[in-house]
């Protein structure tokens, strides 16, 4: 995307701890439902983004006009289904790095175990943040054509 096209591009990445309970299937169903809602909402607001779920943590990236990101983040922060919301990155950017899908969904693959470990257990947010960004970038880049198609990621 051309930087001139998006003079007001804003990125916010946060990490939070999931409070979803139940079997893996129950959790997956709940997440699918949430994803569907957020895709509709984001598409309307002109927002793109991606959600990483590590069974314990969510890491979500939002990219779009600053006001729209602010509005979506306000809603996310009113949601009681996750706790310990921590902002990993926040500020204006020149171009999006998390694709053009309203909300793609990433599930860590077999090769990303070490990074997941850091995302989940690093007590320093900055370290966890760096790990999360790296993990998301690794997951999103090798298969750019597959972004957003949930079945391929949910290995």
């Amino acid at each position, binding site marked *: 995307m051309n930087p001139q096209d998006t003079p007001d591009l*804003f990125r*916010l990445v*946060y990490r939070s701890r999931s409070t979803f309970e139940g079997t893996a299937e129950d959790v997956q169903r709940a997440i699918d439902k949430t994803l569907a809602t957020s895709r509709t909402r984001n598409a309307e607001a002109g927002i793109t983004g991606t959600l990483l779920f590590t069974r314990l943590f969510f890491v979500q990236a939002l990219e779009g006009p*600053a006001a729209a*990101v*602010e509005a979506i*983040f*306000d809603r996310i*922060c*009113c*949601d*009681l289904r996750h*706790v310990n*919301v*921590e*902002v990993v990155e*926040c*500020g*204006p950017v020149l171009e999006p790095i998390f694709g053009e899908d309203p909300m793609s969904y990433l599930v860590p693959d077999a090769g990303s175990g070490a990074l997941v470990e850091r995302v989940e257990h690093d007590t320093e947010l900055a370290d966890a943040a760096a790990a999360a960004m790296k993990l998301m970038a690794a997951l999103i880049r090798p298969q750019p054509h597959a972004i957003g198609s949930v079945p391929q990621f949910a290995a």
Partner: protein
Amino acid sequence: MRSVYICLTQAHDHQLILLAAGTCVVGVYGSFSVATHAARSEGRSATLWAGASIVASGCTAWATHMIGLLAFRPGMPAGFDPYLTALSLLVAIAGIGISVALAIGQRKRVHRFLIGVLLGSSIAALHYLGEASYLVAGTVTWDPPLLAVSIPTSLLMFGVAMVVTGERRRDLRRAGAPLLVAAIGVLHFGGMTAMTLAFDPERSLPPHAVPPEVIAPVVAGVSLGLLALAVVGLRLTLQARAQARRDQQRLRELANLAVEGLAVCDDDMITTANRSLERLLSVNPGELNGRRLSDLLPGLAVAALPEREEREAELVGTDGLRVPVRVLRSKVPLGSGLQTVLAIRDQRERLQTESKIRTLAYSDALTGLPNRAHFHDLLAHHVASYREHDRAFAVLVLDLDRFKLVNDTLGHGLGDVLLCKTAQRLKAALGEHDVVARLGGDEFAVLQADLPNPEVVQVLAGRIIELIGRPFLIEGQLVNVGASVGAALAPVDGIEPSQLVRNADLALYKAKTDGKGTFRRFDPVLDARVQARRSLEADLRRAIAMQEFEVYYQPLVDARSGRITAAEALVRWRHPERGLVSPADFIPLAEETGLIGPLGQWVLRTACAQAAHWPSHIRVAVNLSPAQFRDLRLADTVKAALAASGLTADRLELEITEGVLLADEERTLATLTRLRAAGVSISMDDFGTGYSSLSYLRRFPFDKIKVDQSFVRQLPGDLESAAIVRAIITMGTCLGMTITVEGVETAEQFAFSAASGCDQVQGYLVSRPLPLDEFLSFVEAREAA
């Protein structure tokens, strides 16, 4: 009947009969139109026109009668008795006048009928007097049966005519005049027919009889007069009609100007409506005429409305539009009579304004949440319903941690957005029946409506702390605040609304002092502590007013010579019940409440005044609190105390702690400089504790450093303390400052201090703080030694 017919057709001159009829019609019209004008007029002119009308009616009756007689052709010489003729005219006028006067305002039909009979009688009198005045050269005989029929018939007709004239129905009223004319006709022609004249050459006309040729011009004159009057009446009528039209037009224009809707009604039917009403119902001009009022204002019995009293109603338009209105009904004289006029005022704007005012009064303009007043209402309501349902509930009070910082550093605009977002998150945290309100500033309150168990309060508080603790993104900036929550549970922690809020507030206060971002439930111990504090505060205020304080002095001696060089003034509170209260118990409270201002001033003035009487080499040291430094007039206060006491400035030392320097350094330094310029010495108290930043010593040249007693207590055994004390003494000496060692209690400590090069020593070894007289004796004893 036949004789009547013959009388009419043969015995009368037909042209004159027609003339009589014409005179009658013209006269009656003239009288009536003038009478109508009289009714429209007021005062003297009304009386005059009414009189004219009565005279004209009498004249009409008389002239008609006279022309009738003149039309009579008896076939023999005939003449008129002038006196009786004149009398008949007067009787007619008087009879009509009296009848009309009686008839005015007469509502009862029987009365009107009787008046009609009276009128008929006077006309009958006119007639028969007139016949009596008719003299012929012959004999007159009467037909009694015909008289017996015609006179009562005509009287009856007169009565009926008067009855219908006073009726409300217009068609009945219209029958009045023809009936009257017919009654006169029956009377006249009946009377004429009943009279038979027989020519008798033996009899001649009496000498005073006036021949018809003489009477005729008189009658003609009267008739012409009536004609003239009729013309006048016609003009008056036309004028009145034009006036009425103009009035109506003007009224309509005026009505159209009115903001209120106006409808003139005939019973339930609208006859006229103004533009405002048409606009209110969005209909075309004139479209409302003929509509039924009950269709427009269903549910409002217009006829039963008291006059001049406004009523709320709902106006329904043809398209089903419903408009809340106020309706005022009044009877207004319009044109010929009273009409019902409805004034209809549109209430939509007022109601909207009222509801807006209500919203403004009960909600917080920024967040849209209920405000403090509304919250108290809701709470009171809930307490009332609690008494019925007996279900526990809770009041939670919370405020934002670090909100002031956000407001101060990022601006009030951002602070406002933060409050709005906080309101959103609080709503997300609440249960279905819970209510959140903004009490003011960054303070919110929650009414947790239903508590199955006390733990749910903790859960809600936890949710609130979690949600508010999350970052806020505002205009691209991340803002982190937090919430502290205090709660009071009803009925355990109170049941009065104000008590619940107050107790939740106390719990919040505890939560904030225990570390922010926490939840505390009300604890009665909190309450007791607050009560104790409050009573101490009240005591302190009283003590300042009653001057229950005393100043004690603790001497400072020269480390080498042992002579007293100064004394530190220390305040003591002699409580009437509790005895001597320690400064540690009341100085912090005095500082918190601002009472330190007047108290500090009193100590300063007292110390200066007392020290002025001491030997001149003994100086006095007074402590100043940070709170006193916030007062910009401090330097002036000190100078005033010196001036009032006569103490020279070089005998006053002011002791400050580094707490004074922490806040607003620039201003403090300016004040210190002013004091020093006045000749007062400044000491740094309690040096060695706290930050003890050496930069203070560089930025402000203190005259004296007092080494904190915590170091002295360990002397001389503790090597670290000894090293620190020695270092401070060396540093101070190098900076040219006097060094005082405080808290010296043993001879070893004294010896160590003196050996280390300290200038002054203060402590129990020398003396504890003493009341003034004891201090003076102590000084005397020392000086003598």
